[in-house]
């Protein structure tokens, strides 16, 4: 494999050459003698979007070549001797499913043993989650014979969101550790992978961060199973291509990564951006920025595509997926304010630009489609424009579906992997059905993301709430409320095309079909039952389903065992002296700030003493639960 610079130049050449060829061809068919302003705009849009998907296509091609040739993707060796380094495993949580979070921590703890310290770093603002976390932590410690290396910290004020949570850890306990492994609430990692990451850091003192790309596993809805299958089949090509182009200029995906603590503390204190949200204020998508800051300071940031043993769960439904995209979209668009910051390396700027483009491409696609439709509809332009649309669609199809074919070819070389995915027949059908689903979902996502961008540009910021991570079948009424507008726009599109450009209707039908079918698509893909039926039919199988995955199976068993005890337990602090003592002991470790409204607190204390809590709001509960003095007075 050529060296890093040559790989990058080759890649750039392929992307640019294919884009220039496509744009030239497109320009040639558009018009013979000069261009109108609209046509130039169409060409520019076409060029940007073709370059965008061509970049993804060539990345996959590079990944496929690397996989077929058996190229080593991470040019680092791990230390052979056992590590003397101290590593903390951090699980930041924010109003998450408590049973699931603690099951995950315990499963990793059981896999990793005593080599690591575990910190559950709670930023939960929901008092019910807070108390449930305390009880779950206590239960887990009791069941694990005290487990002195599992810690729990609740932060009374959620300053700086997740990056503030990590910063709080670093400032209080960071000096105790050489490395930290950041997890997400639904992350899982095996003990072998954690130890290997530590060994890699030990042997490579210039490395500040190694990202272990997480594989999607563990959910049962049809939507989640399709994503898991896509991640398992197509993911290895994508990560291989990325690793070969990035080299030490890697990126950070926010979790499932090991970080050198002192480098992080020295360079990754994030500034607040000037101005108000959505573009100003706290940096929301902090991970890309942190990787860029580490690179700027001369540290290496790597990705380890083949390390394995790194997992996360996908969102269970289309609305959950799009809701997560709403936050990421705002976070990535905010990078427009940082992308020109002084001193950042070019690859870091490109990471930021790609992140922005992954959302900005949606409205551009929408403009392109509308522009194409209107040109096709204009009678005086005749058949040339229809040909342009055909060219565009065919080229796009090759770029979009070519990587899937490459993934099939690469997977077919590995008999073990073929068996783990249910055999070639199952993989082939899986790819066909996944492609059909992707084609239907693409216009829904395009419309939704375009709306997100418009709303963000209008200054409408969103919060950074907790995610819905559990499988559940969505009711038709819910889907109709959320996606009625998509359906209506699909129908309007058909009516307009039929009236003004009937010749183009056939070309736009696949796009409009996604919109028109959005409601049933949302409902059906949310179904765990359909997920199970497809599993029984051998469709969308991934290795963790075929062979089991110890760390995942254990987490699921623990979640099921403890889910029932995680009901609303706030009142137990008042009613049960043992729970109150536990809460007060934890409160002493992380004291809450003084109450903002002492008069209100005095009234709440009286009500709490009488157990008259039926009318308590969430804020009331928070005040009472932060009030160590008042709770201690209860006895």
């Amino acid at each position, binding site marked *: 494999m050529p060296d890093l610079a040559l790989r990058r130049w080759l890649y750039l050449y392929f992307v640019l050459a294919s884009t220039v060829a496509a744009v030239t061809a497109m320009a040639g068919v558009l018009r013979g003698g000069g261009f109108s302003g609209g046509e*130039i705009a169409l060409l520019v849009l076409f060029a940007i979007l073709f370059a965008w998907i061509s970049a993804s296509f060539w990345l996959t091609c590079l990944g496929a070549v690397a996989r077929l040739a058996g190229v080593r993707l991470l040019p680092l060796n791990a230390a052979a001797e056992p590590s003397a380094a101290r590593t903390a495993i951090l699980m930041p949580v924010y109003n998450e499913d408590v049973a699931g979070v603690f099951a995950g921590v315990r499963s990793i703890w059981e896999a990793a043993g005593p080599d690591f310290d575990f910190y559950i770093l709670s930023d939960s603002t929901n008092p019910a989650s807070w108390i449930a976390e305390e009880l779950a932590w206590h239960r887990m410690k009791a069941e694990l*014979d005290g487990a002195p290396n599992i810690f*729990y910290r609740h932060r009374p004020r959620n300053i700086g969101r997740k990056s503030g949570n990590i910063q709080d850890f670093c400032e209080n306990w960071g000096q105790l550790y050489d490395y930290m492994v950041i997890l997400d609430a639904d992350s899982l990692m095996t003990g072998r992978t954690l130890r290997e990451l530590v060994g890699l850091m030990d042997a490579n003192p210039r490395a500040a961060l190694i990202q272990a790309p997480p594989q999607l596993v563990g959910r049962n809805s049809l939507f989640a199973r399709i994503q898991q299958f896509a991640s398992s089949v197509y993911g290895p090509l994508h990560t291989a291509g990325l690793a070969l182009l990035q080299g030490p200029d890697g990126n950070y995906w926010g979790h499932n990564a090991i970080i050198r603590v002192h480098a992080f503390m*020295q360079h*990754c204190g994030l500034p607040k951006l000037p101005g108000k949200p959505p573009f100003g204020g706290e940096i929301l998508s902090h991970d890309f920025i942190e990787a860029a800051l580490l690179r700027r300071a001369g540290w290496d940031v790597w990705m380890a595509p083949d390390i394995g043993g790194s997992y996360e769960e996908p969102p269970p439904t289309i609305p959950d997926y799009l809701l997560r995209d709403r936050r990421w979209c705002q976070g990535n668009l905010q990078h427009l304010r940082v992308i020109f910051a002084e001193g950042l390396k070019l690859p870091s700027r490109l990471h930021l630009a790609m992140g922005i483009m992954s959302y900005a491409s949606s409205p551009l696609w929408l403009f392109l489609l509308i522009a194409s439709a209107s040109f096709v509809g204009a009678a005086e332009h005749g058949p040339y424009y229809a040909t342009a649309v055909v060219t565009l669609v065919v080229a796009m199809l090759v770029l979009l579906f070519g990587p899937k074919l490459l993934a099939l070819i690469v997977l077919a070389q590995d008999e073990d992997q073929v068996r783990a995915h249910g055999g070639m027949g199952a993989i082939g059908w899986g790819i066909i059905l996944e492609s059909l689903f992707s084609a239907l979902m693409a216009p829904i996502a395009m419309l939704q993301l375009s709306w997100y961008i418009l709303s963000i540009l209008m200054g409408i910021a969103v919060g950074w709430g907790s995610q819905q991570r559990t499988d559940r079948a969505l009711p038709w009424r819910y889907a109709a409320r959320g996606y009625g507008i998509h359906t209506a726009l699909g129908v309007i599109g058909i009516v307009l095309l039929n009236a003004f450009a009937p010749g183009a209707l056939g070309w736009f039908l696949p796009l409009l079909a996604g919109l028109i079918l959005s409601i049933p698509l949302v409902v059906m893909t949310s179904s765990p039952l359909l997920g199970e039926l497809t599993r029984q039919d051998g469709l969308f199988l991934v290795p963790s389903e075929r062979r089991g995955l110890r760390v995942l199976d254990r987490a699921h068993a623990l979640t099921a065992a403890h889910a029932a005890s995680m009901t609303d337990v706030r009142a137990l602090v008042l*009613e049960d002296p043992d729970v109150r003592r*536990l809460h007060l002991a934890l409160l002493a470790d992380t004291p809450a700030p003084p109450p903002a409204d002492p008069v209100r607190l005095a009234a709440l204390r009286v009500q709490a003493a009488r157990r008259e809590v039926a009318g308590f709001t969430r804020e009331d509960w928070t005040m009472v639960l932060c009030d160590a003095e008042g709770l201690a007075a209860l006895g």
Partner: protein
Amino acid sequence: MNSHLRDISHPGGLAAASVPLRCHRPMQAAALTVPTTLSFFGTMLMGVLALLRGAAMAPALLRSPVLLRMRHQRRA
């Protein structure tokens, strides 16, 4: 009422400390010089102007002899 913790309590009683002793040291704020709104929009404006200039040149470029010949051949 029955204690919620009774069945899960460790024989040693409540867990001693939820976190290790703190060893405070602040993180260093990154000197991330973020462009001002004016310079940001200035940069954007320059980019748009460059794009427009490029777009204005496109028709002339596309009437180059090579491309014209390609078009004629295709139509022929």
